[in-house]
């Protein structure tokens, strides 16, 4: 485990680069359940955000990410759902139960949650740069979380401390109580070669 700071461009000046053995990567997964932020073009469709901005394969998006919430509302149409600065986007695979099926994108039972379904806003967010808070759950978390960590995400410092505390406890990292950080910080997590 190795961590160092670098100066970067964008909303946050500092980036913390962390190198870990690949089997330790799941220690960072809880960050995705709470939500990480990514810097991106905004005012674009969910499909463009996932495929163009994050680089996720379109077929994977269509077939695997079957449950999507935008600002807490189930999404049915990837093209008419627009992400804006500060949007919260949650991604999940197919879920069990009648309610799991109900939440599925464009699913047969979508009518059962009609009152909360995402509907395109007349006031479409403007094209701009901004941050989107991204939550990853279940299979999606394990499958695209590592590449996002490698590309870099913004996380809340308190949440990061929680993830790092486990590494300190288990002897992968030396304790350092002199943190100057507050709010959000950008992290890049890479796996050690050969791990």
């Amino acid at each position, binding site marked *: 485990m190795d961590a160092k700071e670098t100066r970067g461009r964008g909303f946050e000046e500092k980036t913390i680069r962390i190198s870990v053995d690949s089997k330790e990567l*799941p220690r960072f*997964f*809880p960050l995705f*359940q*709470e939500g990480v932020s990514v810097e991106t073009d905004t005012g674009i469709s969910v499909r463009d955000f996932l495929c163009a901005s994050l680089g996720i394969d379109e077929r994977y998006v269509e077939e*695997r990410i*079957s*449950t999507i*919430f935008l600002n*807490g509302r*189930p999404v049915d149409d990837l093209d008419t759902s627009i992400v804006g600065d500060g949007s919260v986007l*949650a991604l*999940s*695979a*197919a*879920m*069990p*139960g*009648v*309610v*799991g*099926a*109900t*939440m599925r994108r464009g699913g*047969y*039972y*979508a*009518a*059962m*949650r*009609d*009152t*909360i379904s995402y509907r395109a806003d007349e006031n479409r967010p403007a094209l701009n740069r901004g941050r989107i808070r991204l*939550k990853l*759950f*279940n*299979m999606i*978390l394990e499958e695209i979380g590592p590449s996002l960590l490698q590309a870099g995400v913004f996380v809340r410092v308190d949440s990061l401390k929680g993830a790092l505390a486990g590494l300190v406890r288990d002897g992968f990292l030396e304790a350092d109580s002199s943190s100057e950080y507050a709010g959000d910080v950008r992290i890049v997590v890479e796996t050690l070669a050969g791990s």
Partner: protein
Amino acid sequence: MDKILRIDMGAKGGPKVSEGPLGDYAGLGGRAMTSSVVSKEVPPLCHALGAENKLVIAPGMLTGSAAVISGRLSVGCKSPLTGTIKEANSGGQGGIALARHGYAAVILEGKPSTDDLYKIYISKKGVKISVDNSLKMLPNYDLVNKMKAEYGDKIVCISIGPAGEMKLGAASVAVTDMETRPSRHAGRGGVGAVMGAKGVKVIVIDTADSKIRQPKDAEKFKEANRKFTEGLRSHAVTGQALPKFGTNVLTNILCEAGGYPTYNFKEGSYKDGAKISGETFAEIETKRGGKATHGCHTGCVIQCSGTYVDKDGNFISKQPEYETVWAHGGNCGISDPDTLAKLDFLDDNYGVDTIEMGVTIGVAMEAGLLPFGDGEGALKLVEEVGKGTPLGRILGSGAEVTGKAFGVERVPVVKGQALPAYDPRTVQGIGVTYATSTMGADHTAGYAVATNILKVGGFVDPLKPEGQVELSRNLQIATAAIDSTGMCLFIAFAVLDQPETFQALVDMINAFYGLSLTGDDVTALGKKVLSMERDFNARAGFSAKHDRLPRFFSTEKLPPHNLTWTMKDEELDQVYNW
């Protein structure tokens, strides 16, 4: 499964055992069997804890065969919690053990005239009933250990804990799992109280020399079973999400959707949901040396259960289900996984329904008995139930009784039974099922079975206003049918998406019984079961006015979407019009 075992607990001179042919009940299993017997033989106006009520324990149609994931057990009676007909469903080894001894049902009748406590021992040699008052007030785990010491390891136990003996409304019937732990429960509706009223503490089934049930057409059955298994394993839900994370994988999703009842149904999203999610539980279990993937009965290929251990690797409980984690967790503001696992264990040990108990504690928190988030306080309350203190007896009688005892207005029950883990203001469609189910509020009453494949009532246009009602109706019909097969309801996800998997299920039933059922026949079975149940309830005094959600759902907005329940009564009244 060619015989029914009846035990008259109130017979003169002590319990009387009789075995008979199936008669009018031939070809039935699971919920179809329990609801048929109760509907036909139990006076609807009887007291649920009286001699006239019957406790019917029935394996499903395919239970005990080589059909994968077919080990479910139905427990039916008139419910002391709801006053309606009741079928509570359990995993574990009980269904398989009974079926392999040839029993399509065990029916406990009558009521003993003394307060003696009985144990029933079923083996290849027959049935023995004996008084054993040393078992009084034993928790389930201690009871099962005592039975293992007495009868050996090759046993399956169907039992009640202290809550059942005290005849409390939340009392469950416990069924031992593959490790002979009493971790599986027919939880809902107080079925354990009815077993307690019969004076029966435990049914011990010796599995020695019992035989797997054989299909009529072995080759066709084998092929259908293979296709069915493939379908389950290849599906994203049954082959991946459930095995990896268990049913609690839903926590993050429901919190995100704003449909996760929090702080006794005051909010729709729990801020600490990620701390108690299925993903988090699986990580803890794996890290500590427990199991994140495990079956609850022989032949399960989904493996959505697990084993939760403490930091030193010691068993705390089986992997708590989504409903349990919700009821005791977000609903009560408790976010410590270890505390939730301990609550799960206590519920299992004392023999109470985890949903009813968690919702009841939420109501107690609302009443100010303890603050939301007080995990230690919640543990103490369940201990009170186990000890049978006056407070414990109130709590063990369920959310409705507790709400009345403490003057609480927001009591989330339908027909006296606590609502499960989905707020109907957010997912209005499931509210239709909660309101109209023959069982009281029940999330499994309308499960995601392929109504578009079954074509129950024709294709539904879900965008029409009446779509919610039609969807709920069709789901309830299909669920009643699946509950009768002995199949775990979780097969529904694969059946929903894969017509060939549904066909494999029908083929399996046909090959086993030598039938030629079609999807329409499955639909007819579901309708028949619901009609019997509905008729029983009508004769018990239930009418459309009971098919309603508590008023607060219509008057209190649920954050974050700030919605209320908006379904009209006249729409709800259409559910059973087919």
